[in-house]
């Protein structure tokens, strides 16, 4: 095909798609502006922010009463009910009791990459054992985390780049190791820095800093050149086989960047129409960080962590060998142990209790109203196929909460992958959850 032909075809792209793009672009732009404004307001009213932060976590706690006294963060609670002055009975309070469940709902909606608009999202995999899961805990409590606002320091970022610039330039063959640091507004708020090293934009290493994290990334669609060739594995290999095949490669990478790993995790991500991704995270945990469940799937990319880790990204088309196409190295800023904290050790919701919520359709697939499932074919999760624990972190909500993630096989794609419906039930007790869903159903019927 010729370039002009391609462009003529693109000129005839469906107008609905162009409209969707333009509308989405405006939405993203406004979102960024709103965040800036929000930050300014917050900066001017620091006391309100503190009050909001103090109010956030306690909303998850159950059974405690707000006495109005000064109570430390994580130990304060909001009443689930308010007294009806006429009847004297306690009634659900829209502002308080339901907000807890709404906060949880917002956590799931917060992520563009996992922003389901219905009761469940669809996950693709050739079989159940290819879904990377985190097993259920055998503890009675699980931590709920909160994390704060943090901007990286330009000096620290420069030190991070200088630490790796020469080795990255040499390893990836990008030529020049000169760079220029640019400052941007980070989409979650605050500042992000970036710098690129390389003589060509087709072959450079990107260095980034935001929140408490510094990382560099290199990606080549033709494959990362290691010792004069590319490296590949097969998606059908087991985790152990993959690690065995990659032993030499991993040794080279680790010795180049002065890295030792204490644990690894292999994640396979499939798409209905696109190639598979196979990511290998080599993690070096800090003493403060528990290995489970902090660095669980779905959160290693979205949650601030205290670990140092290297990720190796592999791309493959269907039936092809997966080629190592990207390498990321992440480090956390000094003092990251204070960046996010265990706000509370919450009682784990018994699996049977979670299943009861699941049975009733009281789930956080993204869409709050269980009767509005009409947009998706109904899925009966009663006889679900798989359950795991998954932490979900907020963007606007600076907390991270464990969920039971339930999977149910719902059919095959044209390309032969299994399709699994996935939905969430909080794994810790959340205040007002029953009332929240009852209210949703009531509101639905009123419509």
């Amino acid at each position, binding site marked *: 095909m010729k370039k002009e032909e391609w462009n003529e075809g693109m000129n005839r792209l469906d107008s609905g798609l162009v409209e969707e*793009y333009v509308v989405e672009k405006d939405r993203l732009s406004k979102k960024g502006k709103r965040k800036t404004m929000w930050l300014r307001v917050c900066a001017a009213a620091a006391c309100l922010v503190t009050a909001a932060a103090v109010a956030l976590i306690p909303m998850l706690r159950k059974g405690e009463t707000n006495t109005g006294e000064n109570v430390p963060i994580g130990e304060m609670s909001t009443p689930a009910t308010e007294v009806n002055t006429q009847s004297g009975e306690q009634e659900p309070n829209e502002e308080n009791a339901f907000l807890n469940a709404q906060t949880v709902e917002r956590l799931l909606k917060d992520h563009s990459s996992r922003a389901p608009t219905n009761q469940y999202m669809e996950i693709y995999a050739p079989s159940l054992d290819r879904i990377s899961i985190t097993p259920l805990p055998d503890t009675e409590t699980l931590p709920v985390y909160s994390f704060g606002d943090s901007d990286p320091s330009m000096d620290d970022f420069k030190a991070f780049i200088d630490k790796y610039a020469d080795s990255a330039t040499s390893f990836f063959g990008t030529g020049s190791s000169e760079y220029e640091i640019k400052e941007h507004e980070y989409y979650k708020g605050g500042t992000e820095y970036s710098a690129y090293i390389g003589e060509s934009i*087709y072959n450079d290493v990107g260095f980034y800093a935001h929140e408490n994290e510094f990382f560099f990334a290199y990606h080549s669609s033709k494959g990362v050149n290691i010792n004069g060739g590319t490296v590949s594995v097969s998606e059908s290999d087991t985790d152990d086989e993959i690690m065995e095949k990659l032993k030499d490669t991993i040794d080279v990478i680790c010795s180049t960047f002065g890295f030792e790993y204490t644990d690894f995790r292999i994640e396979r991500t499939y798409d209905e129409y696109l190639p598979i991704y196979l990511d290998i995270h080599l993690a070096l945990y800090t003493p403060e960080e528990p290995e489970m469940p902090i660095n669980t799937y779905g959160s290693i990319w979205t949650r601030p962590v205290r670990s140092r880790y290297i990720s190796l990204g592999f791309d493959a088309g269907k039936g092809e060998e997966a080629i190592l196409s990207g390498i990321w190295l992440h480090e956390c800023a000094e003092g990251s142990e204070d960046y996010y904290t265990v706000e509370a050790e919450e009682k784990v919701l018994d699996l049977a209790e979670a299943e009861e919520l699941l049975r009733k359709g009281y789930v956080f697939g993204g869409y709050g109203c269980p009767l509005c499932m009409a947009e998706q074919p109904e899925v009966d999760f009663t006889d679900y196929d798989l359950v795991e624990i998954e932490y979900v972190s907020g963007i606007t909500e600076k907390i991270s909460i464990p969920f039971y993630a339930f999977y149910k096989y719902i059919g095959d794609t044209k390309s032969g992958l299994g399709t699994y419906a996935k939905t969430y039930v909080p794994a810790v007790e959340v205040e007002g959850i029953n009332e929240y869903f009852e209210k949703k159903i009531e509101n639905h019927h009123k419509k």
Partner: protein
Amino acid sequence: MELQKAKTARTPLDDEKIISLYFERDEKAIEETDFKYRKYLFTVAYNIIHDRLGCEECLNDTYLASWNAIPPSRPAVLKAFLVTVIRRAAVRLYHKSMKKSAVPSEMTVSLSELEDFIKDDGDVDSAFDAERLGQVISDFVRLLPKRKRYIFIGRYYASQPIADIAGELGVSRSTVNKELSAIRSALKEKLESEGYSI
């Protein structure tokens, strides 16, 4: 001074009002379109042709085409309509310029990413059916998840720089690169299955 004050205080009209002006054949329609969308349209054109004079030419073509098309057309999303028009104008100019010398624009970079299935710069073959290709690409894009649709159209329709897309989505440039790479592989497969010679 007063004029300056009035200028800074001016707010863009709603699209509906601008379209009404077109329907009323009021030339303020073009003025208001220019005031509201000039910067964005200029960027789209610049990402394609990398030439300020050329961008001005494309803008004029776009306003004229809009004046001629509305009415009878009543665009659902005016901005999308304008982007479609200016892209066509800019692409026409781009290929004209490319015949003389290389254009160092974002479009050149984005086209080079598609080298797996776009081979050369020659003229459009007489048997080439642009409508059909547009349909095939549209069908493919519709099946992508929303974020990938955004990335694809941003990169290969609007010729947005990867860093800009990454910034908008709040992800790293590598992540966008990675997603684009996957989309290209899948698109190549789709085009092959539709009989396009790659």
